[in-house]
């Protein structure tokens, strides 16, 4: 992946979250506090502005800038998770313009590890991990090139997000609802699916 592609990913994600902001808020209203779309959107708009202003030249620099911006503007659970996850990923990305597929997979692995560590959630807890973990394992296990795999993952991401509806939340705000959390899709899983859809389009070359 090139630095340009990586930056396009954030532009795409920013636009997608902006477009689905109300929907994400409504998902969060049902089992949380109605701010997930607003939170991510606030952060991502800042990311786009700062990326434009600073034009970071390497993958690592871009990832760090995105991480620090999200960390200092999103707030809430998703701010801490995306922010510290991306800080971990930035350590994996090279300080160059391009990286190979394996490094990208490792960076995403570092992102997911960090989120698991920070948030202490596991798959099935009805969180963003319910999209990121299956996505990452497809990516890591599959022998095909990522230009093929990632678009496939992207095609599944929405299903994984929607499958959280049947889960009872164990972590995050939705956990307080106990059994009442069942029947609602997790907002963080939904926004994570948007991220994978963007990655799919960019790596698949359809942006």
């Amino acid at each position: 992946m090139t630095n340009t592609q990586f930056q396009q990913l954030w532009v795409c994600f920013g636009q997608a979250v902006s477009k689905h902001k109300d929907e994400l808020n409504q998902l969060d209203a049902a089992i949380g506090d109605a701010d997930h779309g607003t939170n991510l959107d606030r952060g991502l708009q800042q990311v786009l502005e700062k990326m434009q202003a600073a034009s970071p030249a390497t993958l690592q620099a871009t990832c760090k800038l995105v991480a620090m911006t999200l960390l200092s503007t999103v707030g809430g659970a998703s701010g801490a998770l995306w922010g510290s996850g991306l800080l971990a990923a930035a350590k994996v990305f090279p300080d160059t313009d391009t990286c190979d597929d394996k490094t990208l997979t490792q960076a995403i692995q570092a992102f997911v590890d960090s989120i698991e560590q920070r948030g202490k959630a596991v798959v099935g807890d009805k969180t963003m991990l319910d999209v990121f973990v299956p996505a990452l394992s497809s990516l890591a296990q599959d022998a095909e090139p990522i230009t093929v795999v990632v678009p496939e993952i992207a095609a599944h991401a929405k299903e994984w997000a929607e499958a959280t509806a049947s889960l009872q939340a164990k972590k995050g705000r939705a956990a307080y609802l106990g059994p009442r959390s069942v029947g609602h899709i997790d907002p963080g899983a939904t926004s994570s699916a948007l991220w994978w859809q963007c990655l799919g389009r960019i790596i698949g070359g359809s942006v």
Partner: protein
Amino acid sequence: MKKIMNSPDTLVAEALEGLVISFPQYLKQVPGTHVLTRATPKPAGRVGLVSGGGSGHEPAHAGYVGYGMLDAAVAGEVFTSPTPDQVLEGIRVADHGAGVLLVVKNYTGDVMNFDIARELAEAEGIKVATVVVNDDVAVENSSFTTGRRGIAGTIFVHKIAGALAEQGASLEEVEAVANRVIAHVRSMGFALEPCTVPQAGQPTFTLADDEIEMGIGIHGEPGIERQKLRSAHELAQSLLEKIAMDLPLKAGDHLACMVNGMGATPLLELAALAREVSLWSKSHDMPLDVVWTGEFMTSLEMAGASLTLLPLDDTLRTLLAAPCDTPQLRQGVHHD
């Protein structure tokens, strides 16, 4: 949605300015941040207390910044945990060389953002301890889940730990007394009407004319169960029984109680509810030494209330009664 504001995006920043304008003798803003700190800092060598969280819970937390309570309050967007850089600013301004205690309510977002901030502050050489308040008995406590939420009981932690810090106790001592409060303080609340997050524009849920949400948090979220509206007597009864069983309480225990309005509930009704707590405590032979009635930890304009009980020993009682001087809580007025 009808709110007195200029725009949802500027509301928190404008309100923080407005708080400083309203309480200049107590509060000043750390420039360029969402951190309010004491107008007159604590003397060097005393432990600092920092709390915070999303906005929309006013008077929490800026209302408790002042002598005998907090040193700084960090405000996030409405119902959104503040970011680590903001919390770090709060820690820095609250550190007077003896370390800083972070009083965090147990929400994933708050816990994680305060944790990241603590790591950053420790990297700067500041001694930091964290206590996590989880007083809400509506939510089952289990090691597999997020655990209980922190709600109104947090203010008893501010008050008691703040009083000890003011006396010059060490960070370890202040942390220990805060944890002692946390170990014993229990709360539960209910909503008669929802609230509307300014950024979202829609009420967080809707209730029929005879329905309430039982076991709510403080972020407009639905509670653990939808129930029929009942009398003040029955509402008090069910909250108090749940709290008492959880602790558990026994005859002879001396109690402090907080009757907390969620935002839109008139003091008239809160006072009627306070009377029910008093009747209950009498019939259970548990003397009510302290009653705080009013709005301490709100959820915007939600209608409803929460009850908090804290069994008191001599130490806690003394610290709870110690003077404090903050926008919201003042004790120990000197006259004649």
